[in-house]
């Protein structure tokens, strides 16, 4: 592509980030770079601040110090209209789905489209149905209300809404938790396909070792209030840091790796 930027340009650059709630410091001096077209996973123990980091990057939370650049634009202290334009360019899947409970799934997916485009309603409904299909839901789900969905279906409907604007950057908070293994596998496949055909950048929080092995380019390990390891999965599992070892050297971690090696 003639117009495309050089492949290594960072989409997200976090420098010296500090986030705290009251006196509790969650992140201290955290650095993180995510390049265009990369699928990056954030891992770390429960409560290590993965969701919090995502919320800071998508401008829901003001950091106490440091800088965050999103699409080459500083977002710490950003103005409202600039923030609105940036929001058009990424989608977020919230950990609990966060679907609007009074709207059907199709209307939920259509909300960002109505807000950010001037397409006719007919076209928007078509696009919404496509996103619902892309997320792996049967067509009749579109007419249902969130309360009529199972936990896994909520995840996928939320994914459909995150994909609504065909964002260049996708944030996913635990996308496969609550999915059955078959759909989780299909989800990994979808992420890889979207990345390859759309040059999508994906940042996801996940505890799913299969996803980590099969869908990610690099994995950032959060611990001790910063990123203590950032490498492709194969290298990260060989890291020396005791927290990282404890995370991957458990029986589940080893089983996933062996399965991976056998598959290769």
């Amino acid at each position: 592509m003639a117009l495309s930027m050089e492949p290594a340009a960072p989409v997200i650059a976090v420098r010296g980030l500090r986030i705290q709630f009251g006196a509790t410091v969650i992140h201290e001096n955290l650095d993180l770079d995510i390049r265009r077209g990369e699928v990056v996973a954030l891992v770390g123990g429960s409560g290590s601040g993965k969701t919090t980091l995502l919320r800071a990057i998508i401008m829901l939370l003001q950091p106490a110090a440091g800088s965050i650049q999103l699409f080459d634009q500083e977002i710490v202290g950003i103005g409202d209209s600039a923030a609105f334009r940036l929001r058009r360019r990424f989608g977020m899947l919230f950990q609990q789905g966060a679907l609007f409970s009074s709207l059907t799934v199709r209307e939920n997916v259509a909300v960002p489209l109505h807000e950010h485009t001037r397409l006719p309603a007919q076209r928007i409904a078509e696009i919404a149905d496509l996103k619902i299909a892309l997320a792996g839901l049967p067509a009749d789900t579109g007419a249902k209300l969130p309360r009529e969905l199972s936990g896994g279906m909520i995840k996928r409907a939320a994914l459909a809404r995150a994909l609504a604007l065909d964002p260049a950057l996708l944030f996913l908070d635990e996308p496969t938790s609550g999915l059955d293994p078959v759909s989780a596998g299909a989800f990994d496949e979808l992420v890889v396909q979207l990345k390859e055909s759309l040059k999508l950048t994906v940042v996801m929080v996940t505890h799913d070792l299969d996803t980590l092995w099969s869908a990610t380019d690099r994995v950032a390990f959060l611990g001790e209030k910063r990123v203590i390891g950032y490498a492709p999965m194969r290298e990260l599992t060989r890291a020396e840091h005791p927290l990282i070892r404890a995370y991957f050297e458990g029986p589940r971690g080893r089983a996933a790796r062996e399965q991976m090696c056998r598959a290769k």
Partner: protein
Amino acid sequence: MTLNVPVAAIIRQESGIWRCEGYWTLDGIETLDRPLSGIRWPAGVVQLDGSGIQAIDTTGALCLLSLVADLERDSRQVHRIQFREEHLALLDLVQERRASAGVLPPPPPRQSGLERLGRSVAFHLSGALGFLAFIGEAAVALGRLMLHPGRFRWRALFGNIETAGVNALPIIALLSFMMGIVIAYQGGQQLKAYGANIFIVELVSLTMLRELAPLITAIIVAGRTGSSYTAQIGTMQVTEEVDALRTIGIPPMDLLVLPKLLALIIALPLLTVFADALSVFGGMVMARALLEVSFSDFLDRFPQVVTPTSFLLGVGKAPVFAAIIALVGCYQGFQVRGGADSVGRQTTVSVVQSIFLVIAADAVFSVILGSVGLWR
């Protein structure tokens, strides 16, 4: 990215080949629909050339695929030529996912007016029956509580008395004081014309103690406390906390309803007495300012015209109002289904219904008391 490049999807014909160019993306296709409908396609074979496509996303792919589908439905053959590898992969992905989602079932037929009317009647009847069943359940739970008084949640009771009763004192004081002033002012104008100034005591005391103070207090409490009962239980219903209570073996009735019900039955009569005092005081202030009836004249006459029966009849209505407000508030809370908007809807219903029922009950009281001759 170079600025000033128009982001648009373009399709144009060049020596028999239809060239797709530009940006087949969400932004690009906004301008596509109109030119597309103006194209006159040749019969037979249509060659679509995708080499000029700068960027394509799933929305653009959808447009392209539905274009192809339209053409094929009109029995044309579409040849896709010179599409890039990754664009074809995306088109395939979109096509495959749409196919596996299946087709949309037809929308349910629209209901006729008669059917809607019937459904709405049935809905409201079942609502009324549900409320009766709820009252029954609450009574059973109350009976169970009498048998095992040790199980009662005293902390919840006192907490509720504090929020529903003590914290409501300032607003009740203010509003009933002002009601006293208003009644004394309106009535006083008339009495003054006849020189019957001293009858202001009857006017203010009896209207307030028998009717207005209990009613005003109940309406304030319905708006303030009944709504919060609905919102609290409704939110717990949304977050499955009510189900969690059941699973742990705590009947929601015992924890969420009975303490509220009893707290309000205790607090509302007390609030009514308080409102009685403040509204009569408001009347006294007005009587002195407007009708030259001094505080001591007023208080001398007060016990002569207000019998204990009048006072007790007013206060005696309060526990009934309290039960109505608490039961409606809790019942509507349990009726919440789904999410945030349902909480809002049920809260509105709760306030409207409890105020309606309170006034209706007050009317029933008037008729009954009148017919047994307890007018004074």
